[in-house]
């Protein structure tokens, strides 16, 4: 892969006698999101922290946009890479606006540019800049703090974002909303990102590719769908979870992909939208007991989706 944004080669790190990361290698293309998943202690956070040199590798190399990370001063390297940490770590003695402006200030941006960027990010993450900017982190809810944490990491317009359990410790509803928000934002901004998580569902939702790690090694690195259809024997199979893989595959596809033409009509009582997942469509079909569902956009029927088409996507042979 020529022109990879992040390239990791034979990266190794020991702590005492224990090998935390064992000769790992992978590439992340510009604009791609890679998830590192695995159980606690599998080396995923250590791998992430070696990319911005919070931990120095014993062996191997990291290339950022074609440059060896070792050639760059660690502080300068980190200022150029957004970093969202487990536990958020907002500075409690600074306002939300001051927190977000941390790296732009370090980089010496002028005041007006910083102020504009802070307002832009606050709006992007659904805050009212005038209201939220002067608040202190303690006055925010957990979900709001997490969002400010991500906004802070994106403040200096980095091309790369490293995220360590960015939406951990949140209730499932808030978590899902933040995951959707993040997906929308990163599509718009073209960010390259690596996300560390122990939650397979989060990896499926956020990532273009997933690397399953165990005992310091990458066992398999693939797109979510290929991972579900062809997991390697052993740990990957067990970790990915195969009981509901058909449903999981369905949730990776959108209704739009399978919609057939249908005559224009007003929306019936039961319908799906083109951006709903096949999983949602399947669930509705099972509930209603029908063979097909109308696809509706702006209150008009634009097509239909058939049960047989959906089942085919979720079958072993399909690709």
């Amino acid at each position, binding site marked *: 892969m020529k022109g990879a944004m992040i390239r990791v080669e034979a990266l190794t790190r020991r702590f005492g006698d224990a090998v935390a990361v064992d000769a790992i290698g992978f590439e992340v293309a510009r604009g791609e999101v890679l998830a590192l998943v695995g159980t606690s202690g599998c080396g995923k956070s250590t791998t992430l922290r070696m990319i911005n040199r919070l931990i120095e590798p014993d062996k191997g190399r990291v290339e950022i946009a074609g440059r060896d990370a070792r050639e760059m001063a660690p502080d*300068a390297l980190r200022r150029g890479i957004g970093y969202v940490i487990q536990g958020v770590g907002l500075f409690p003695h600074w306002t939300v606006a001051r927190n977000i402006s941390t790296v732009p200030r370090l980089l010496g941006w002028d005041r007006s540019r910083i102020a504009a960027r802070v307002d832009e990010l606050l709006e992007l993450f659904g805050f009212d800049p005038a209201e939220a900017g002067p608040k202190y982190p303690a006055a925010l809810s957990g979900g709001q703090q997490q969002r400010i944490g991500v906004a*802070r990491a994106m403040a200096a317009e980095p091309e790369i974002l490293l995220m360590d359990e960015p939406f951990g410790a949140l209730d499932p509803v808030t978590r899902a909303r933040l995951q959707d928000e993040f997906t929308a934002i990163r599509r718009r901004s073209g960010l390259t990102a690596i996300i560390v998580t122990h939650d397979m569902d989060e990896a499926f939702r956020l990532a273009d590719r997933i690397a399953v790690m165990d005992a310091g090694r990458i066992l398999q690195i693939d797109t979510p769908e290929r991972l579900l259809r062809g997991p390697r024997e052993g740990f990957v199979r067990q970790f990915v979870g195969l009981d509901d893989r058909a449903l999981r595959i369905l949730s990776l596809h959108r209704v739009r992909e399978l919609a057939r033409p249908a005559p224009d009509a007003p929306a019936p009582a039961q319908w799906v939208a083109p951006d709903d997942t096949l999983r949602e469509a399947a669930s509705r079909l099972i509930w209603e007991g029908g063979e097909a569902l109308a696809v509706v956009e702006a209150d008009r029927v634009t097509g239909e989706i058939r049960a047989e088409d959906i089942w085919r996507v979720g079958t072993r042979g399909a690709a």
Partner: protein
Amino acid sequence: MRRYFLAPLVLAALLVVLLLRPELMTPLLRLLAEPGQDLIYDRKPLMTLALWHLALVGAAGLVATVIGLALGILVTRPGGAEFMTLARMASNLGQTFPPIAVLAVAVPLLGFGFEPTFLALCVYGLLPVFETTVAGLRGVSAPVREAARGMGLSGVQRLWRVELPLAMPVILTGIRLSTVINIGTATIGSTVGAVGLGEVIVAGLQSGNTAFVAQGAALVALMAICAETALRGLGRLADSGALTRA
């Protein structure tokens, strides 16, 4: 602001009035003294003694704070971590030395008067500042430290912009303790010839003049409580974030 400093201001005003017009105390002191004894200590003006007392405590406190802070910062840096055990043990050991012992040991080295007291105050005042600096810096939460590092703040920037401001309320507690202890130790310093309000008490004890003892004790106690409440107010102000928020 006012609610933090009202009490110390009132106490300070009372102290200044009593120092400048000690004769206001005579009705009470008359009850304590034997007939014919002087009621008010008049070998030196009380105000002069109080100012010397404060100057001694202030100067030693400044030295103790600077050294204590520096040592606390040093042992919490990665390069100084190995000195941590030594510093903590020395500090624990130091706390088992009573102030009077530090004073007593300093006299043969430095003679009587200002110097041994100053040295004892510096040494003894250093311990609380050091201890609380370490506690405060260690108390900065791991995610906050990790975030500061991950965003590319240099070591000095992390210390000045993040760690010290967040540790400040705890460090102020140490400075308060140090100051209070030192006002007391400086009083004992009068037994080795340091100029201060302790002189009045010592003179009273030597001549059996309870009036002297009582007025010296009351003034010193007032000064200590005044300093304590003022520094406590400062600590509350820091806790509320007014000092460190940017």
